[in-house]
């Protein structure tokens, strides 16, 4: 909330809030919307075909952030480690390929596996390790330091909230169908969001 207050005061200029510009290494095919925010002093690496929607926030304040190929980060999502709570190792965050981070999701994980989907308003705690092809349903959370196996689905009110999706694990064609779906999404979005990664790479 406090950073939002800061954003309001500097509303006239549509650039990021703090004057510190992160060291960004952005692939040329990535699309970063004009109103996206990348902050922090550490390294931010963005792979190819990544789409970052307006008002997404990537915070490299406490550690580096590496975003794999084909990822999608939606508006109001916050990607980046938060304040360290005592552990000494710097929190590098590695986001795998094809990861879909939806609106208002808060990701502070250490690692997010390939092709995982983190739905609207989900949250992944600090230091957690999420496997590949996982899905975290809206408003669900992965606790700090928790390890999610590959193909896990986190949903529900928490009572029966975990499930291993055997279908996804066993059948390749279902995974391929999902990949195809993701690729088509990216195609469409590419045509709709104008790119302004120059803002982050130059200067």
């Amino acid at each position, binding site marked *: 909330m406090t950073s939002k207050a800061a954003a309001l005061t500097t509303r006239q200029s549509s650039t990021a809030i703090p004057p510190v510009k992160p060291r960004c290494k952005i692939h040329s095919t990535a699309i970063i919307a004009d109103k996206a925010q990348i902050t922090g002093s550490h390294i931010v690496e963005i792979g190819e075909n990544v789409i970052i929607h307006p008002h997404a926030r990537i915070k490299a304040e406490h550690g580096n952030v590496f975003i794999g190929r084909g990822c999608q980060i939606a508006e109001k999502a916050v990607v980046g480690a938060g304040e360290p709570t005592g552990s000494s190792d710097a929190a590098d965050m590695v986001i795998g390929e094809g990861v879909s981070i939806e609106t208002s999701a808060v990701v502070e994980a250490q690692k997010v596996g390939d092709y995982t989907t983190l739905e609207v308003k989900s949250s992944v705690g600090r230091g957690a390790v999420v496997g590949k092809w996982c899905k975290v349903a809206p408003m669900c959370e992965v606790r700090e330091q928790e390890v999610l196996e590959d193909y896990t689905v986190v949903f*529900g009110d928490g009572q*029966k909230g975990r*499930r291993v999706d055997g279908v*996804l694990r066993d059948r390749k*064609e279902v995974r*391929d169908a999902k990949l195809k779906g993701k690729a088509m999404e990216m195609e469409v979005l590419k045509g709709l969001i104008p790119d302004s990664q120059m803002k982050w790479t130059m200067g």
Partner: protein
Amino acid sequence: MTTSFPSTHYACPCSDLTSAPTPPSSKRASIQQTSLQLNEEQAFNPHSPRANYTLYPIDHLLFCDECDEIRCPRCWTEEILYWYCPHCLFEVPSSAVKGDGNRCSRSCYDCPSCTSPLAVTQVSQRDEALLRPSDATGGDETYVLQCHYCDWSTLEIKVQFNKPTKITEQLVKQRKSRTSASKEKESSAKAAISHDDAFANLTTFYKDQLNETGEPQNAYPGSPYSSPANLARIMNIYGGLSHNALKKTRDKPQPMREAKGHAEGQTSFSGIDSDTGVIQRLQSSGWDATTTSEQRLSAPVNNEARFTDDLWPSATRLRTRRAKRCKSCRHIIARQEPKVGSMRYKIRLLAMNYIPRLSIRPLNPTVPITNPAFHLRPDMPEQEKLQPHQTKQYILTIRNPLFETVKITLATPATTPGNIASRVTILCPSFTVGPAGEVWDEALSASTQSASSDGGRKAAMASLTGSSESSDRQPEAGKIWEKTRNSTSVIVEIIPGSLKPPPSIVPKSEEELADAELEEDEDVLEVPVYVLAEWETEVKPGESVQGRKEVGGMAGEKVRKEVGYWIALGVGRIAG
């Protein structure tokens, strides 16, 4: 009881908990006095456990204009207008409902793991043919039911469909083939048979039994004797020596026997040996892989499923749209249009259009009061708690929906019933409220029309001129605070009681301390007020005068009507 304040809940006078209080002196005239003191025992206690089931917000109450009484969900009967499926929103004719087991017979199914709706999705075997238009591929397209919330699909139970419609048929076929396949494997008689087969076998068995014992079908459904055999038996006892009657008594009916064996539908306990497989599976998958009782009860096919991997999707249960009918006079008081999804009412007799509505708000709000349902910002202030022993004044507003002037009398016990005694005083318990006219009446008539109240005119003038006098106004006993065209406001003084009992020198025992602990929601300050509204209305010629409340009954004459009910005003929570 609500968690948001201020609130008003209305109690229907149907239960003895909420019936009208009898005043201490039994004369009617005593009600006309300015302040009516009620005993605590007569007053409605909003904290009593039964009060939970009698208090309703105003939009849930209806009114029967034949009986001139409030109708709550306990005072009306519901009749089903139509059945519909909540997913496909198709209406199901009531004749087909029973046969389908109150479930949708189209392709609407619920996910067994998260109970959200399943969608028919296409899945292809070949990678390259994915998601291309359907004319590109031959018969390779298969369909599954997919849950988009938890990603469960029928592929988990290895079920696929050939076409996207008539899922029910295809599911039934697949289940049958699966149980027959497993029955072939286990040829021992101890194997359990599937639920559907057992049901079918049982019904045929018992039908045969009934035929064998000679009970003829009931050709006389309306007869009070329930079957010709019964009739014959009774005739036998009371007379008649016809040949047929004597013959029937000679033939003793065969006793019916129960089902024996699988062919007749009996399901047997499958024996201890087959449990080892289940136990091993339980050890490997863990507790989370077992089904809950809700999951087992979701559909008959799931009744014996022990593991979540064995759960089949259940067809969506149908919902109904119901009309409401007054229990005493059988008048319809609410009825919607028979079209699915239409929220328009043919008949709608809402209580809010017949009884005065009350609402309460603080006189000097320290925090701006907002309707808690309409919090627009996430940082809206928390409602502050009431401090014990601090007098607070509230404005109680009464709005009159009728077209006649209504005389209102309010009564409340001096201290609120329940464990925490707060003191309540209504400064002006008896007053009138103007009629709700047409909207343009207000514009046409000047504000002088409502000058019949004390203090009201000054307030109206003050608000018109925008002077600051209104903020300095002091509430006075016996005077109305504000009066507009169809609403009147009076002041209520509330002194919240303390949650903790007063400290005493005598040390309390364990039981007393345990008793003194607050139960949930006991710190909520709810004021019970009995509202009596009286008004006069003209009887239209031709209208029959019913009910027991009016005096005189000729057409064209004025008839006095009244309605009385308890309300619970939720003021806030007491701090401490």
